[in-house]
């Protein structure tokens, strides 16, 4: 299987701080790839480079054979890279349906003039995309919340709505930034089940940052470990787990007396 996304020698500096140093990474088609590392390792920075929020100092990001380095976020979305955020970034005052319809935004065409009339094409488009959004709502089992403003929903449901919004963009690659952060055991299990369904039923490749090692070891096909902006390990979950450099990064080094 070929790689859908490859990150090649990416370096990212902010002033004197090096957030990422020469990081390389390949996500294979249909894979669930986990990105782990201690706090401040550069995981979210790497996400921001891939989705176009940061421009890397050096290096390239290739998506489906196309160079996407320095492309703006709204362009990478339309190419097929959708993401969720570590701290939920939903549109609080809008309903679940409207949040998901925003995920369809770049697939819709209506401009201000056809929207103002709201006849024919604009209306048909609105209804067609609404139907697709309802499918995603069914898939994520959030039917009963569909007309509520998301700001008032429980945390676990908000996380699910954000996942739904990313799915609504019809992505080929999903970037999930800590999908199970702050969740209790049941919510984490639900989320893990949805992630597996997305991979297996929808066939979407996933790159996921996650701190819950249980989840990572259970569902990931491949794991990459970052520490202080440097890649220290890459491989199958069980290989990475026993890698001495990884253990050292997580547990600290024994001091030499």
């Amino acid at each position: 299987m070929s790689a859908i996304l490859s990150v090649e020698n990416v370096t990212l500096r902010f002033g004197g701080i090096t957030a990422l140093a020469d990081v390389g990474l390949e996500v294979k088609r249909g894979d669930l790839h986990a990105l782990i590392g201690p706090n401040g390792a550069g995981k979210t920075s790497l996400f921001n480079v891939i989705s176009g929020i940061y421009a890397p100092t050096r290096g390239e990001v290739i998506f489906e054979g196309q160079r996407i380095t320095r492309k703006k976020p709204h362009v990478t979305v339309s190419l097929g890279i959708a993401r969720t955020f570590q701290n939920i970034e939903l549109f609080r005052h809008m309903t679940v349906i409207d949040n998901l319809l925003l995920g369809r935004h770049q697939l819709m065409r209506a401009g201000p003039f056809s929207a103002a009339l709201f006849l024919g094409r604009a209306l048909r488009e609105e209804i067609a995309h609404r139907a697709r959004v309802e499918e995603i709502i069914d898939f994520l089992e959030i039917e009963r919340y569909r007309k509520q403003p998301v700001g008032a929903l429980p945390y676990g449901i908000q996380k699910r709505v954000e996942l739904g919004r990313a799915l609504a963009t019809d992505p080929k690659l999903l970037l999930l930034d800590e999908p199970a952060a702050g969740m209790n055991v049941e919510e984490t299990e639900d989320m893990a089940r949805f992630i597996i369904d997305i991979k297996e039923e929808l066939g979407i490749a996933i790159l996921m940052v996650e701190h819950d090692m249980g989840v990572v070891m259970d569902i990931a096909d491949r794991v990459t470990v970052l520490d202080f902006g440097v890649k220290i390990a890459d491989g199958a979950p069980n290989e990475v787990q026993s890698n001495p450099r990884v253990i050292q990064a997580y547990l600290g080094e024994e001091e030499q007396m």
Partner: protein
Amino acid sequence: MPIRSKTFNESYYEDIKLFRTIWIKFWAVIFVAALALLPYIGDPYFVYLVNLSCLATVAAVGLNILTGYTGLISLGHAAFVAIGAYTAANLANHLGTPFWINLPAAGLIAAVAGAIVGIPCLRLKGLYLAMITMSFGVMVEYVVITWEGLTGGVRGMSVPAISIMGYKLSTDERLYFFLIAITAMLLFAANNITRTRVGRAFVAIRDRDIAAEAIGVNLTYYKVLSFAISSFYAGVAGGLYAYTMRHIHPDHFTLLLSIQYITMIIVGGMGSIVGSIFGAVFIVVAPEFIKLFAQSSARVFPVLEGRYDEEWNIAAFGLLIILFLIFEPGGLYSIWNRIKIGFKNWPFTY
């Protein structure tokens, strides 16, 4: 066989159409009938107030699209109204073009001006944006006073009445249906824009601009578009103003007018088309009540006798903004919504 409840939709179209229930249709018909009968049974002064409300509503809807929906504050809305008013007046006076060219032209010229102001504002929010738009308003005010060849300066400028196939809309009664029809068309368009793709993008920018961009909304395009649509409405409102007042003067388009529009959308409800109507009507009608209040309180406190003047209104608008922001940030629209939900659920309390 599902049990049909009060509002039972079988297609997504039924869920998003404008008049969804029989009751909404019923009240809409009553409202239209009342408006249609007003000139025949009401006081001519009411007709005048409705005309003023129409002008205010069009401009307020424009500002609400920019400030209420997109979250970009503007203290220079009056400048775009002025641009529209002087565009329509000049076209009518010098080229003699009919209103159906002049009004869209007023909107388009104002929209272009809005887009130009919008571009440097792309990276600014809140206080800084308020300062820039206010400065633009002051600049336009200055240009209107000094460029006498175009605006007539402080002498002002006369505007001919609208003529539809020889029928001159020269009185309030004659303008009445014309203004209502134009306002209704513009409200319909604004309502459609704000509840579909473009409007959702605006609200997304207001709620979380980073997430909006990450989900595929082109921030540059939609911020400029919001400025342009907002200014288009202001420009058309300005053109209608010129045709209604028949004489325009720099004093009509000051910072105070911009603040009045801000008051309208705060009192009416930010991010709501219906709220813009409520706010506009409220601010147009409020001075009448303030005058009434001043007269009746003068009877109790003789010291207030004869003290009422226009300045009272300005003070009252300031007080209104403060009170609404503290007690009812959602504006009249959220009060209206609560009442509506109360009736809908009656006799239950939830």
